[in-house]
Structure formats: C-alpha cells, structure tokens
C-alpha cells in the first residue's frame, strides 16, 4: 500500500463540509483510506501514529488542509486525488441536492417543498408534540419517531390529524414504508399488494420481510406507535390505517399487527375489520383466535403465519412456497448435546415484538418464563440484570436504553449480557435477533462475533455445549450484506433460524427434556 499526500495551503472548509468530504473520499473505490484534515501539529502526530505521515504532511502548516490517500499503487493514488478534487470542486460550485438543504423550522421546510406531504419528527420528546402540531397544521402527515410524549398530547394530535384526514404515526413510531420508501427503521422490501398497519415496529418489519421472502411485496406499511391501541388513545390511527388501506387501490390484502389491544379498542378494531371489504389477517401477539375469526378476519398466531396467510390471500400458490419447516433432526441432535442441567432459554433481543414472539412460543410449553416485558407481573424480572429460569429480554425497552442509543444501533448492553448468560451452566440455548435494514447497525453480527466465538470455546472447555440461535431480520436488498451476516453466524457455529417464528420455536424445543 502506498501513502501519498496533497496539501492545500490556507484552505478552510467549515466542519460540516469537511466531514462530508471526508466521508465521500473514503467511499472512493480506489481508496484504502483517506484523511482530510487541517495540518495541525497534533493531527500530524496522529498521522504518524497510524502510519500515514509523509514528508509533505510533515511540513504542512496549521492553516493548510491536508489530504492523505492510502491506495495500492501510484496510479490509484492519483485517481483518488483526482476524484477527491472533483468533490472539492462540486462543493465549491454550490450545487446541492435537495437532501443537503437544512431548514430550521417545519414551516420553512414545508413552504420550500410544496410537494412534500410527510414530516418525520425526531426531536426531544419535550418538543415533539409542538413540532408535530406545526406539521399537521401545514397539512403534512406525521411520523413521530420521538418518544417520551404524553398520552394527552398523543390523543390531541391524533384527533387533530384524524379531523384533517392526515396520518399521525407515533409517538415512538420507528417503522413505516410509504410509497415504497422505508422510513426510520425499516427493511428494503419489494413493492406489492399487501398493506400493513402495525402498532409494533419490529413485528411489522418481520412480517414485511417474510412477505418479501415469499416473493410478494408491500403496498404501504403504516406504523401507529405502540400506545395507539391503549384504552385512552382508542386505536385512532389503527382504524384510520385500515380505512386507508381499504381505500388504496394497490392494496389487496391487509395485515394488522399489534400486541393485545385494550378490550374496548379490540372491539372497535374488530368491528372495523368486520366491515372491511378486503381480506384482513390479524396478528395480535398472544391474541384471542375466537374473537378474530368471529370478526371475519384471518387469525395468525405468529409472524410467519401472518405473512403466509397474507400472501396466500394475495394469490400465492402454496405448493410453490418454501415455508421453511422446522428442522426436526436438528432439534433431536441439539437435545442430545445438552446436559440435564441445561434447561433454560435466554432470549436477548433488540426488537420488542421479536422478544415478545419468542417469549410467547416458550410460554406455550413452560410456565416459568420471565421477562422485562411480561404482562403478568408475577413473571416480570425482579432484577433486570439477573435472569430467572427462562428469560426473554427486550433491550430496546426504556429501562435498558436510559442514556444509551437503541440496541439496534449500539449493541454494547446486549453484548455484555450475552457474555454473562453464556457462562451460566443452566442455560441450554441463547436466542438473539440481528436486525439489519435502514437505520440499523451496519454489522450487527460482526459486533457479536468475537464474543460468540469466545463463549462457545469457553463452554467447550467446561465440557458443555452452548447452543446459540441467531436470526437475521433483513433482506438481500438491505444496505448491509444480508447473506454475509448469515455466513458469519454459521462460520461461528451459530444455528441460523430463517424467521423469528422458527427462532422462537427452535429455542424452546432445544431445551425441552424427556419428550
């Protein structure tokens, strides 16, 4: 590898431009590494430390801009410099894409983009309601990513939106796909004729990904925010979402996803579904089959089942679908490897609904299933740092994210817990999700690999088999490399589950004794 430098004397770029140029320079194909920085003594010291100091850099001054390129050959360095210079020229020409324009208020953004019809609000919760109100007043649909918004504000905003015929998705709405554009945390899925209304972010992601895998696609995915089906809010957006999908010509089948609604809200939603002219699949995690069937809807107990029913209703030929049945011989094989002491599952999840689905799968077979999101207080974890028997943790829950980014972005908290659980001799299987897609970590499996390898080696040295089940929520169209994530899991000796439903079922089956 060669290191070459270019010095631009007395050249200043503001910090934002410099950061952007630096990022783009590192994306140039020929470049192994590029650095664009002011030539201060301290920066030169750093370049020396990382082996990138050249004679030209050594003599640069504090007011000079230095560009250092590491590439395989002289020619590639030259090409890289040429491309970097083009980036500078573009920057100086003042031509900007619309993505680069920053607005300080919603009104100015709306005024300058009359064709815009949706605003994403991702400010501190204390100000989110105010900004959402402004957006709605400007006739914009709202997707509110922010949480910590009062339920009173949520009700007021949703009523206001409803009156104006607008969507108010959220608060705490992390997933939507509108007009084939993924918003916030969502996956790149095919466009199609199945619409989703979901009060659950990762639940909606999971169903959209499974539909994609079955060869079908999504017309719209409307997120409502997790509190929409609470008594106080009354499912305002869920009802509007179902109506919108019923009115949408491109949507042939509707999937409704939520944790169990408040009884009065469930009644309203099912009444709405009963009058809907399009087929509706309902997946309420832990929901009541009878009520759903009575409403004329199609009941799904789990996520893959919901996706499967949706694609069949949309016209799929069942005989041609790979439904990816559970690998029964593998279950037998793993059971023989686990000792009688290894009887518990530990589920460590970044997605709340994914945790919930796996937990419900375990609850079908075991009574002693604990979690931080258990609805039964008796089985709520007493200490969030200590697992009890079968334990399923949603690391995205507020108690784990205080002062930290969401685990789909920063895996550190979950990683530390994984190391802890892997040492527990009573653990038979650890099940984890690895969510990719827009907004998610660029290499979630990679972040866990060293710990997984070490944990498995450690267990082996102690004479026990540690079964790890990994599920990658994503598609081959996502910005990360989906197949590479799976390959990494497999190479580390992890059992790869093809869906969240299978991951949950495999985990529970692995630790069953005496069947």
């Amino acid at each position: 590898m060669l290191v070459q430098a270019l010095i631009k004397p007395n050249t200043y770029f503001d910090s934002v431009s410099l950061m952007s140029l630096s990022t783009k320079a590192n994306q140039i194909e020929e470049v192994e590494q590029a650095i664009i920085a002011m030539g201060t003594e301290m920066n030169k010291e750093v370049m020396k430390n990382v082996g990138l100091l050249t004679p030209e850099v050594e003599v640069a001054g504090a007011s000079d801009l230095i560009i250092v390129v590491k590439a395989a050959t002289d020619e590639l360095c030259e090409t890289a410099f040429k491309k970097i210079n083009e980036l500078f020229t573009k920057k100086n020409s003042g031509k900007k894409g619309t993505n680069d324009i920053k607005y300080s208020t919603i009104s100015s953004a709306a005024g300058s983009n009359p064709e815009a019809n949706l605003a994403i609000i991702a400010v501190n919760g204390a100000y989110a309601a105010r900004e959402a109100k402004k957006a709605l007043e400007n006739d914009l649909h709202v997707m509110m990513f922010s949480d910590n918004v009062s339920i009173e504000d949520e009700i007021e905003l949703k009523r206001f939106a409803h009156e104006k015929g607008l969507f108010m998705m959220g608060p705490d709405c992390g997933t939507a796909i509108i007009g084939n554009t993924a918003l916030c945390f969502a996956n790149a899925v095919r466009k199609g004729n199945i619409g989703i209304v979901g009060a659950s972010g990762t639940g909606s992601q999971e169903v959209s990904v499974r539909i994609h895998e079955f060869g079908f696609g999504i017309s719209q995915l409307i997120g409502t925010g997790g509190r929409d089906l609470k008594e106080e809010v009354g499912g305002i957006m869920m009802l509007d979402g179902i109506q919108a999908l019923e009115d949408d010509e491109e949507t042939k089948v509707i999937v409704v996803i939520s944790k169990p609604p408040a009884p009065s809200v469930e009644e309203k939603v099912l009444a709405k579904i009963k009058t809907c002219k399009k087929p509706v699949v309902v997946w309420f995690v832990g929901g009541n089959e009878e009520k759903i069937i009575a409403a004329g809807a199609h009941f799904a107990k789990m996520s893959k089942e919901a996706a499967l029913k949706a694609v069949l209703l949309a016209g799929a030929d069942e005989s041609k679908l790979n439904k990816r049945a559970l690998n029964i011989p593998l279950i037998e094989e793993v059971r023989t490897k686990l000792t009688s002491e290894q009887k518990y599952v530990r589920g460590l999840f970044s997605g709340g609904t994914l945790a919930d689905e796996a937990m419900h799968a375990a609850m079908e077979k075991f009574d002693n299933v604990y979690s931080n999101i258990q609805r039964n207080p008796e089985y709520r974890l007493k200490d969030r740092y200590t697992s009890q028997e079968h334990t399923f943790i949603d690391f995205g829950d507020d108690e784990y994210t205080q002062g930290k980014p969401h685990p789909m972005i920063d895996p550190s908290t979950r990683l530390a817990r994984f190391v802890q659980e892997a040492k527990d001799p009573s653990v038979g299987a650890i099940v984890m999700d690895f969510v990719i897609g827009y907004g998610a970590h660029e290499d979630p499996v990679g972040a866990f690999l060293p710990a997984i390898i070490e944990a498995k080696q450690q267990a082996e040295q102690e004479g026990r088999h540690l079964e790890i089940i990994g599920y990658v929520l994503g598609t081959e169209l996502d910005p990360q490399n989906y197949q590479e994530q799976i390959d990494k899991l497999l190479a580390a000796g992890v059992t790869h589950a093809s869906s969240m439903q299978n991951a949950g079922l495999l985990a529970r089956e692995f630790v069953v004794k005496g069947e």
Partner: protein
Amino acid sequence: MINAISGDTDFIKEFNNSKFTGFVHSTFNRTLNIKCFENGDLYTIACSNLDNGPNTLIIDVDNMKSINIVVDDRVHVENNLLYIGDRLTISIEKVNIWESILPSYTPNVEILKQNVMKVKEYINIHGVGGGIKKNFIPQNPFEAEVSNLLEKRTLLLFNELINDRISSAFSHAVSLVGLGPGLTPSGDDFLTGLFTIFNMKNSPFYPYRSFCEDVLKKARTLTNDISYMTLKKAANGKVRDSIISLLNSILVEDDQDLILSLNKLLNIGSSSGTDIAYGIVFGMEATIRAGGKVC
C-alpha cells in the same frame, strides 16, 4: 446595502472608530471572516440564522454565497458603513448591540450537579461522534486514534484540575490544541467550553483563569487562524450566545429550557457543538469535584 441586525460590542467599536481596514480571510456558506490590518484579529460577518458571537456582526441575509465575496477582497469602514470590495456595503444604523456576558457560577451545587448529569446523558445520546464523543465504530484508524488521544488527554487534564495541580494541567491542555481534523479541531472546541467555565465569576477556577491565557500563548502555532481566534476570545470569557444560553440553563432548574439550549449548541458545526458541550460539562464536573479546595 444590507443592514446589520446585531453585532458584538467589540466589532461595533471598530466600526465607530472608522480606522478599521482589512481583507477577506475566508468565506463559507453562512459566514465570512475579515482579517483586520490594525490588530491582526479576525472578525466575522454571519447570516441571520446564526447566533451572536464575539467579533461577529449578524446581517440580514440567508446565505453568504449569493453575495459572491471572495478571499482577499479589501475591507474598510467609512462613515459607519462597512465596505467589502465593491460587492457588499453593511450599515449598522439599526444594529442591536450584543455583548458576551457570562453568568456567575452558582452557589446551588445540587442543581448544578443534576443539570450537568442531564446534559452529559443527553449529549451521550444525541451528540455527534467522531471527536470527544467516540463513535461506536470509528470510520477509519485516524478517527480512532484522534478519539483515543482526546480521551486520554482529557482524562489526564481532569485529574490534574481536580487535584489542584494547575501547572501540570497546562501541558495536558496544550496537548489538545489542534487535535481533530475539522476547521475547529475537537480539542480546540473542548477547550473553548472549558475556558468558559474558568471565566465564570465565582467559579472555583476563576482565580486561575490566567491558565487560559497561558494555553493560548502556546496555541498560536498549534492551530489555524479561525480556531485560534475562537480560543483567544474564550480565554477572555467571550463566547457565542448559544454557549451562554446553555450556561444560564445549567444554573437553574428548568428541564425544557436546558434541552432547548443544549440542542442549539449541539447543532453547531459537525461535531463542534458536541465537543464544546463536553468541554462545558468537563469544566463543570471539575469545579464540582474540586469545590472549595481549589479556591
């Protein structure tokens, strides 16, 4: 002719003495800097969407680029009008005078402790990584090394400050100057925040504020002109309005106001706002830990 909306008192003084001459030192989308021949200092002309700052005049335009001012254009003041080549004339007839005045350090340490903790938690989540705040996955080895050095050196500085070893703190502070790739390197931004705390009246560090001047003397050759000017002003307790707003919010109990002013600061530059905010938190934590011992 364009009207100035508001201006720093030092800049207005230069206007009024009519001996201000210089040239355009650098131009950006929302600011341009003038180097004054008389005193060698930099003065900033900024767009209306920026906050007040030392040596800064805010004018009634949205974007500086449209005026087509170029580096080396000559600047002079005549009859209370500032001329930049033949491209721009600025009047201060309707200007509101602004002065950088830091609040006094609070006697209510409990509120201070709580607010500093809230600010720290907030920037840990919402701050921009790559400088004082480490990115979980650094973009390249250079960034990783810069972050490591920033972490080590700020920690060393902290230990010296809380143990009342101001003279040995000096070398660690100097080792931060110019550290970071940006126009205002992260180390400089951090020191800007820290210097501010030294200059708050009644702060435990206030009697030692010559520390800032001492660091500044070393900084002249260690960083670029623009960043040096910011440090020079901060060493004398002159900082931009968004920093003062945050300090005011940290001293009282009003969460909404605290987050609002913090967000404004975090929006400065790419990681600059975050680095300044960390400098403030660091300085405040050091004063709390040092307490009466330093005084």
